[in-house]
């Protein structure tokens, strides 16, 4: 039994944790949310690219370190802890993963080194307004030209390329296409977002040139979001763990009625519940990392349980962090809202928990019918 980080993973997490401590203090996050640094932190993004982190999972022939997906999980956890305002999820955990799995050799050669260095930012565009895990897709491709819109597109304001889901004929399942965004036929409009450290945009396509990828149905698209959901679960666990640490520190330091408020069971038991939810979430996330690394496992179920547990844990941790701070937690000045925003952003970014629950039970139902013959 070895359901824990290996020594190698621990050392990588330490390295990136140290980098984030130096370059991504809470002041860096606040710069973005205050609007004094636009959209994401350029300096941190450059550092992550120069030190090879953005290419950690990329095969060596495309300029990467070819590390196992579990290392990306560790990186995601550290980025989550730091509330890092950089487009790693869109560019690395989605766009680069998709190009690697579903790109042609020439597409890989062209885009993976650019995504790996950070020179190019990628994103993933599935939704067209409100929707579940298999949202209605009206965007369509005719003669390698894309028509329609996508919204919200994470990091869509700053992305250079996007992987877009679109149909090729009426009634067909959507397929994935690669679009370079700096071309006529693409227009973008920034959206006001709940968490400004994770910006989003509406993209309009009026005949933009696209390249086909090999993902041509929902099963392939869900495989993409399943993998991203496991990375995201680590980001959520990292954020939740940090929120709990901050809440405990405050509960130990703040006095009321003659004693630290953490000594009151009303507070102590809430924070114990946060700890419990994080332990469950971390456990299901580790299981997800194992599934990512182990061919032949039930990736959809692994992704569902990792995502649902992680969403619940970060949500609870962020709420209780704010609540334990009392009135101060409600202010712009406190950092509580950074967690409160990020937890909600991550909770719906790949589809809401309700839709993932729906999907999970659907899978269990189908599996039980298959077993029953």
């Amino acid at each position, binding site marked *: 039994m070895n359901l*824990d980080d290996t020594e190698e993973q621990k050392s990588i997490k330490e390295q990136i944790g140290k980098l984030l401590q130096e370059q991504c203090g809470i002041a860096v996050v606040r710069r973005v949310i205050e609007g004094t640094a636009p959209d994401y932190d350029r300096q941190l993004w450059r550092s992550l690219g120069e030190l090879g982190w953005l290419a950690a999972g990329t095969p060596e022939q495309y300029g990467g370190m070819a590390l196992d997906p579990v290392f990306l999980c560790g990186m995601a956890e550290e980025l989550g802890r730091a509330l890092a305002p950089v487009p790693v999820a869109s560019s690395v955990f989605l766009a680069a993963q998709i190009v690697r799995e579903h790109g042609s050799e020439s597409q890989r050669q062209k885009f993976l080194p650019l995504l790996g260095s950070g020179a190019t930012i990628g994103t993933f565009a599935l939704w067209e307004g409100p929707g579940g895990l298999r949202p209605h897709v009206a965007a369509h491709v005719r003669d390698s030209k894309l028509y329609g819109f996508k919204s919200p597109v994470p990091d869509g304001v700053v992305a250079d390329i996007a992987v877009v889901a679109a149909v090729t004929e009426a009634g067909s399942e959507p397929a994935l296409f690669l679009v370079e965004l700096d071309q006529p036929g693409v227009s973008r409009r920034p959206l006001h977002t709940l968490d400004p450290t994770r910006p989003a945009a509406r993209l309009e396509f009026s005949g933009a040139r696209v390249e086909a990828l090999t993902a041509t149905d929902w099963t392939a698209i869900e495989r993409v979001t399943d993998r991203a959901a496991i990375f995201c679960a680590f980001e959520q666990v990292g954020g939740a763990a940090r929120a709990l640490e901050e809440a405990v520190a405050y509960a130990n330091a703040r006095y009321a009625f003659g004693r630290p408020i953490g000594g009151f069971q009303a507070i*102590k*038991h809430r924070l114990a519940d946060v700890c*419990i939810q994080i332990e469950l979430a971390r456990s299901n996330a580790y299981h997800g990392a194992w599934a990512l690394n182990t061919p032949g496992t039930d990736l959809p179920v692994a992704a569902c349980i990792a995502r649902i547990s992680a969403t619940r844990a970060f949500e609870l941790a962020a709420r209780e962090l704010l609540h334990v701070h009392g009135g101060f937690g409600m202010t712009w000045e406190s950092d509580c809202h950074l967690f409160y925003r990020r937890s909600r952003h991550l909770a719906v970014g790949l589809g809401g928990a309700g839709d993932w*629950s729906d999907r999970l*039970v659907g899978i269990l139902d189908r599996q*039980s019918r298959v077993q029953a013959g």
Partner: protein
Amino acid sequence: MNFDDSPPDALLRAEFASWLAANAPPFQIDAPMPRAEEVKATRAWQAHKARAGYAAFTWAKEFGGRGGTQYQWLLFNDEEGKYRLPVDIPHGGIDLVLPTLMKFGRPDQYRPLAESTRTAQIIWAISFSEPGAGSDVSAARLKAVRDGDHYVFNGQKTWTSWAKFSDWAITLARTDPGVSKQKGLSCFILDMRSPGIEVRPIRYMEGEAHGFDEVFFTDVRVPAAQLIGKEGDGLKIFLSTLSLDRFTTTSHREISAVNFEPIFRLSKAITDGQTRRIDERDVRQRLADYYCDIRGVQNLRARHMTGMARGEDLGPETAIGKLVLANRLQEMAAFTMDWLGPAGVASEADYAADLAAVHEAYFMSAGYRIGAGTDEIIRNSIGERVLGLPPDIRTDKDVPFNELRETAAKRQ
């Protein structure tokens, strides 16, 4: 990151699995069975294990143990759990009492009992709780008064495991009411056939007894040689015994998926006219949450076993599984009855077996939230010992037991 045993552990597991495959099947039982028969079946299986060296896994070899680690014992337990074997009854004696005696007692106290405990010829009762001393066991009132080379016991214990079928018991009694409640307790072992002991089984709310009893003491004479440690060591010894029980509580059935299955089957079988309940969004949400918690607890256990395999000392976080799933089971049992409407509380139909399982879960889950550490005690331990939050304020630490308000209130 994986669920694989290390190569030496894999070898061990294979050894256990093949021994069990060859030996376990004839000893399997059809639960539920009358307790007296379960005791007989227990003794047969335990004696058989003892001959192969598997009976007292973590004991030193000189006492007939295997000298194995706690982790190796869990591996054996995992494999043993794949058969329906009578393993509940000897757990207290082998895993809790004798290790406690070996740590705090004298060889003349545990040597004569070790062999027969190992083979379950002696069955042990664990007798700590009292009607007024549950989570706060230091409030125990069972009186032990020194009289020559004996102590005379008067009072009552409750929730004593297996008392009706046990030969010996480990217990806590108050030897000095003039000091604080924590300092005036002492630990004893005693012969359950001593004159003056009366055992009454506790009938649970659903109507059955489940191996826990009330024990009444009237002028019971216990030899002073059966005091474990010194007078006043009782609470320290109790806490140490309790810590031995940590990992076992999560391995029991409340964490397993067996409780999910009847609820899941009902959600597929029950329709409201056309729609199966499982196809309704609120039902799916609740099922998904429950399923995620079950998998979370199983994966958490794998992480804890990873720590144990490395020799790490585990704390109160091992009780998370029990806390989470007991609460979830209680909610889900009630929620399942809700889908069924009035039929949810009446067992009549082709799904009666699954509904009966839900009814049983409704009753038993309430107890899971209390036994082996209440929800509140577990949350306190996690808050204080995992998170490092301040302890509760105690008003009973420096007051002699016989001057405490709780004691005075009882006297009236």
